[in-house]
Each structure stands twice: as C-alpha cells, then as structure tokens.
C-alpha cells in the first residue's frame, strides 16, 4: 500500500503523459530540391508480409534529424563523400591505378547502387557493392582490400550511392540470385539470441512502435551508408546488421559473411521502389 502511494505520487509529479504518436510521419523528403520516393507500394514478393507500403527509415526520425538530410551541406555524411572523392582519384597498388583510371569520374557509377547486391557471372557469386569495390582494389589495382565495414569502405560506398540518389532501388531476386535471396529471407525470420528476436520481430511486426526511446522503422537499407548521430560516423549495412543481431543477445555474423550478403540481398529487395538515399542521416 505504501508502495502504491509512492508511485502514485511519482506519476503525479511527472505529469507529462508518456504517449507516442506511432507510425511513420507524412513529411516529404527533397534533397537539394530533388524529391525522393520515401513511401511506395511494396514489391510483389512482400505480399505475404501484410505490408502494402514500404517506408524509408527517414519517416521514423525526428524533424531535426530529417532536415539534416534534406540539404547536403547539413549532412555530415557528405564529408565522407568528399574524402572518397580524393580516394577515387588516388593511385594505389601495384598496377598504379586509381578508380578514375578505369571509370573516369564517379558519375560513371550512376545506377550502380540501385541494383546491388547483384549476380556476378564471371565470379559465379552474389556481390555486394563492398565486395565489388574490394574486387576492383585487389584484382584491378593490386591494392589492399578495405576492411569490409571500415570508414574508407563506407565512404566509397557513399560516393557511389550519391551518384544514384533518387533512383529507385531495383535489385533482382530471381535467376541465379534466387537461392541466396531465399537464404536471406530465412535469416530475416530466424529468431536469434537469448532474446529470440528476428529482423521481422521488430521491423515487420512492430515498425512504427516505440521500443523504449527508439522508434522502430521497417529496417529499410535504401539510405545506406548511414550517418548515425549515435556514433557520429558513416555506418555500413553489415555493421548495422551486426549491431542488431548483437542486441538480440546473439552471436553475430561477420560483416562480409555469406549470411550477411544473403541478408543484404533480401532486405534490399524489400526496398525495391524506394529511392537510393545514401548517405542518409539517422539516430
């Protein structure tokens, strides 16, 4: 009884009700005046999920975070794009080449981000953008690979993503990638760790809801790499996957592992139709 009286007093003292207006907001995102597709009809393969509209994570953030992404000068992720521009033109490795030696300007990468991960016929594998960057570095340039989820890798991904900004994500899920896609889908629904949570537990069943102070999004990756205010750096898709799996009190997979490559393909395909936003700004 004494206890109840105490908590009742506490509740009165903190009179602000703890109530959230859940769900995605209705704002619209234009980056430097270019309109982004941040909500659109879900791709056909998501019919069984019950989700009919796919929504960029941008809609689940606070206004001040959202506005940071609307102007490239306010977007801290763009600093990495500048750094990667320098890297693009820097000769490295035994072949004495830079990215520019083969690809000229980074604008030649327009459309690339939108279709990765994709099948590489010659290698007979599904390749993420990071894998392709490292293939260029090691096989074409004779340079060292970037660490998969490192700063230089995230920056180079950001430079390449910017070239496709506004273009709809359009990764293939059939043909030679079908098997990998199915594996990714299975991982998406696997409840890992001592908390027994899958990607779907939060990002399919509970997007729009708050979990403590975090507003759960659909877990879309069209905005990657993502500048997170939380760690003040650009974050890769696999780095974020690792953090999520860790938070289920599970043994994570490694960035660049076949499991995360498959998961990236599957999650990317859930965003087919949303604009490439990278580098985006999130919590």
């Amino acid at each position, binding site marked *: 009884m004494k*206890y109840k009286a105490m*908590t009742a007093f*506490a509740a009165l003292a903190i009179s602000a009700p*703890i109530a959230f207006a859940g769900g995605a907001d209705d704002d619209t995102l234009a980056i430097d005046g270019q309109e982004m597709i941040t909500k659109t009809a879900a791709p056909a393969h998501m019919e069984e999920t019950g989700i009919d509209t796919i929504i960029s994570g941008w809609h689940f953030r606070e206004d001040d975070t959202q506005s940071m992404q609307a102007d490239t000068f306010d977007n801290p992720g763009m600093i990495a794009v500048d750094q990667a521009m320098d890297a693009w033109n820097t000769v490295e490795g035994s072949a004495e080449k830079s990215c520019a030696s083969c690809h000229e300007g980074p604008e030649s990468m327009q459309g690339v981000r939108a279709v990765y991960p994709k099948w590489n016929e010659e290698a007979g594998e599904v390749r993420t953008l990071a894998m392709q960057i490292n293939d260029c570095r090691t096989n074409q340039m004779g340079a060292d690979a970037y660490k998969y989820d490192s700063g230089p890798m995230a920056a180079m991904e950001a430079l390449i993503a910017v070239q496709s900004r506004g273009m709809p994500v359009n990764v293939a899920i059939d043909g030679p990638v079908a098997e990998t896609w199915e594996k990714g889908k299975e991982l998406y629904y*696997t409840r*890992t760790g*001592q908390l027994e949570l899958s990607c779907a537990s939060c990002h399919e069943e509970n997007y729009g809801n708050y*979990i403590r102070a975090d507003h759960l999004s659909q877990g879309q990756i069209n905005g990657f790499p993502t500048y997170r205010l939380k760690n003040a750096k650009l974050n890769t898709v696999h780095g974020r996957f690792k953090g999520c799996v*860790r938070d289920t*009190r599970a043994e994570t997979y490694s960035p660049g592992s076949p499991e995360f490559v498959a998961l990236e393909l599957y999650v990317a395909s859930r965003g087919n139709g949303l604009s490439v936003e990278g580098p985006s700004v999130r919590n």
Partner: protein
Amino acid sequence: MKLTGISAAVVLCATAAIANPIAPGEVQYDEYGAVAASLSGSDGDAANGAKIMVNRGKGNCVACHAVTALNDAPFHGEVGPSLDGVGSYRSAEELRGIVANAKKMFEGTVMPSFYKTSGFIRPGDGYTGKAAKEEDLMPILTAQEIEDVVAFLLTLQDS
C-alpha cells in the same frame, strides 16, 4: 569412509539447491502457460520488482510496455500492451508464467523469455556479439527477480 560421508552431505545440499529455486529447465507450466509455485520459494518484493522493470540491464519491461505507475522512468514502449491494471485481470500464476516464458501462453509472441537457458539459436555472451556456450547461459532474470516483478505487477490494480 570419511570421504563418502562428506560427499553424501554435499549431495544432500545440492539436492536442496535444485529444489529451491526451481531451475529454468525444471519450471512446470500448466496447459495455459501459468506457473503455480514461486520459482524462488519465497514471496516477491514489489519495490524491487519496480526497479527491475525499468532497469535496462535487467527486465527493461518498460522498453515494450507502458506502465503509468513507472512514469518517473522515461520512455515507455508500445510494442506490448500497457500493463496498467494487469494485476486485476491476471493471477500471480499467470503473470509468473508470462514473465518466465510468455511463449507458453502466447505462441509466437515477440516477448523474450526471462527464465530460460536453453533452446536458443546462436546464443551470445550477453551483448558482446560473441558466442556463448549454452551450459554457461544464465536466465535474464533470477528466480527471485521474477517473483519480484510478479509481485509488482500484482500491485497494478484498476483504479
């Protein structure tokens, strides 16, 4: 033999320890997922239960459930139902079962099982991202902590 006498005494003590508290693998859930007996063998402490419910490293129940009586701890989630008044419509036995392993009552629920140490996929060593051996896993809450939370939940009566 003196040695036999000592080990017999150890076995007796160990037997007592298994019976009280009830180990996670030994909990008896009824057909509805309720648990009749106190897991620790003792009564719960509601005040401590309230602390566990807001502690991020313990129950962190408010991460998913709103509880008006705990409004002094900020940011309650909305993944699960509000727990206001839950003590009016759930018995201690039901609440114990739900907190220990809600999946016994609600198949497929996203709610983690707070008194379970086996049957996980890729269990980790806490939040390190590293692998844990299943035999080393501790339940998220102890038997007494479960009882404390149950005791607190029973104080949440319809006003």
